[in-house]
């Protein structure tokens, strides 16, 4: 079966790739696009390690067909920092030891950013439910939740 040609945008850059009709967006990112920061923990949409945004909306890349990205804006962990300047969430995660093994971290950061874009002043409970689709087995979530709450406070302060 011949491959399908897809034109899309990843982290603000126009890209093209070829894929099988059955390939997931996760396969395309990790394969032809070479963006391995998006992780595969389950392939069934249960762990959130492959969280990306499509036109700003949070999705599991493993549950989306690669061909569906045609004409849309994909954002992955590789586009979160601007050069040497980390996103406030990335910086806060490092300062507050909100990661251990780090395999879930890209997905957690993408989800947390999507949450804060929708709700810049979340309660602890809102953060916990906002990140409930991202499994983390190392941290017990405590430091992740605190880091997201602190980042939100800091970002609100910066806006003011």
């Amino acid at each position: 079966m011949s491959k399908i040609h897809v034109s899309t945008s990843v982290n603000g850059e126009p890209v093209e790739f070829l894929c099988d009709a059955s390939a997931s967006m996760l396969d395309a990112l990790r394969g032809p696009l070479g963006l391995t920061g998006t992780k595969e923990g389950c392939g069934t949409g249960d762990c959130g390690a492959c969280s990306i945004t499509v036109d700003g909306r949070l999705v599991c890349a493993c549950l989306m067909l690669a061909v569906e990205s045609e004409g849309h804006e994909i954002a992955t962990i590789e586009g979160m920092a601007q050069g040497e300047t980390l996103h406030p969430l990335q910086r806060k995660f490092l300062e507050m030891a909100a990661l251990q093994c780090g395999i879930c971290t890209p997905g957690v950061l993408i989800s947390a950013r999507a949450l804060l874009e929708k709700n810049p002043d979340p309660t602890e409970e809102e953060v916990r439910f906002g990140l409930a689709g991202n499994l983390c087995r190392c941290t017990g979530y405590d430091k992740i939740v605190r880091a997201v709450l602190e980042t939100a406070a800091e970002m609100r302060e910066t806006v003011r």
Partner: protein
Amino acid sequence: MNDMTNKWIGQRTIRPDGADKVTGRAQYSADFAMPGMIHAKMLRSPHAHARIRGIDTSKAEALPGVKAVVTAKDVVDFPLDKSVMLGIQDMRWMCRNVMAREKALFHGHPVAAVAAINEEVAAAACALIEVDYEVLPHVIEIEDAIKPDAPILHEWNTFEGKPSNIAGTMVLKTGDVEKGFAEADVVIERTFTSRPVHQGYIEPHACTVSYAADGRVTIWSSSQGQFMVRAMTSLLTGVPQSNIRAIPAEIGGGFGAKTIVYLEPIAVLLSKKSGRPVKMVMTREEVQRATGPAPGSLSTVKIGAKKDGSIVAAQGTFYLQAGGLPGSPLRGPVGCSFAAYAIPNVLSVGYDVVSNRSKVAAYRAPGAPLGAFATECVLDEIAEKLGLDPLEMRLKNSAKAGDKAIYGPVFGEVTFKETVESILHHPHYKAPLDKNPAPGVKRGRGVASGFWYNAGGESSVQVNITEDGNVVVTTGHPDVGGSRASIANVVAELLGIDHSRVSVLIGDTMTIGFSNLTGGSRVTFASAMVATASTEKVIGQLKERAGKIWGIDAEAIKWEDGMALPAGDNAGKFPPLSLKELAAKANEMGGPIGTQVQLNTTGADPGFATHCVDVEVDVDLGIVRVLRYTAAQDVGRALHPGYVEGQIQGGVVQGIGWALSEEYLYDKNGRVDNASFLDYRMPVCSDVPMIDPVVIEIPNPKHPQGVRGVGEAPIVPPLAAIANAVHDALGKRFYALPMSPPRVSERLEQP
């Protein structure tokens, strides 16, 4: 107790691998690729128990795109009659676990592997392999496996003279329990069950392997020990260790289960046959079906105490599931359950029971949580019966320095009491709890304690000074939770330089000396010890160099704040020489500056933890929620407090999952029914509260910074602490885990 004179030890520094991990650049095992690489898949047994009469791979090999096929006949055989041990692993079982030999012992057991131009072709080829199975009756549960008429997995294994599924025993004994129970005022005996739980790391097992034309092998994989990967791969393939370069990828969680290999030897054999680099990545379903888990258990614990609460006798009988091949972690429950207590009469017995499940793997304090679940619940019941505070009862019975531990050694320091007292005096334990906050809602509080041995062992490190006067530290241990950050703190502290000038990386098996597994709560203990010794040698070299430059004796020189200085006025007056200045002059003054230290580290004192938890039970739905959790532990010295707290918090939440929601479910054909993250229910963010770690720092006198192990002890108490809290809420004891909604509802309907 942070020493205020320390600049880096005890500080929450940014971890050396941090920027890579928050930007997606860190390379985990599935992130590697090589030119010309092909892909491999396993064919797995569709039966829980079957004799393999023959395997015909000819159709698979004929499929276009297939490059190599491997079966058990390609794997080095370790005959059943002779044990070959690598650490705690018997290679007889490892060779049969990576590829089924005489029998398929569980659903999902690998029987063949195919490498092909892509995964789809490899999977199609797997489907063409014809395996002639003689399907046998299977057995899953311990209770069934130990029945006299149970299907026997290994006919050659006998127990008490008859073929049996009991593959091993362990007995620890002190005093005379019968005499002890006779002296007791109260004796309580209970039987407990728990289900197997998976370690639940988010990164599936994966590797990329290149077998070159000259027989040299390179392995990129994530594991808890690149030297374990090298040794097991060597034993199972026959490739000498000196030809294997095992490069540790970043590891996406292990918790014990990545202390053995599943894929690497098979990938080596496929790469050798095909002449191509081979990549193998497990699916989540394969991980859940065929790796790990921790054993399920059937335990009976009997404890006798005097009216004043002093324990006079304790007896534990622990049956653990080994899975299809022998080797459950008996020393966990048998050795740890009673270790924190001074009990004159103890009999602790473990049985290793095989059944048609995947072979168990280590999981954080292997086996100890199962023993503590039984023991700490019986203690709670005794305290209740005697009208004693459960924490006061633990204080009364705490082991002391000089006591002989049931597992052998004489205790040096025992810091168990400190953990109990810190909970006893914690605001959480004193806070009022409204036990009936609303109709249909009950609340309760529980406590429990835990013990883990901790460990030292082999560790290697290099400390090299760069030409521009900075530092590169190479360690031999994969970093599962921030050990690089701790080592950087230690080296920066000793050298008196800014933390950012120290880089820490993990060497591969050809660039650093032998280092044992990351496991057993040993790595920060061992690696900080060798890093200290190596850095002190480097400081010695730096003083010698300064001595040469100044023309004075090295002994007349001191090292302070990153500089060599004359030790006193008698030494002469010289301007200080910084690390950068000495590095710049290194070659003219004797050559490169750097050292390697390799030690078998000793002096890892045991770890103690005491936890307190509040739960809320929805009586109608049977849902137990954790409202508040406080976990006290003596860590000796927190080199990096953020990652010490993280170990405690993560261990507790894994314990919460074990207690409330996680379990393997099997169908009647012996197949795992919930091999996905949707149906195997680990705690998510909205399931748990903040976890309050009480980090007690009583320095270990046998370690240069005072470190004790941290990672294992936090998962030992939660099972019992939560069961005790649920009892406090409902007035009913739970002897079976998990306390999931259907089981809680069922129990509430019983009288």
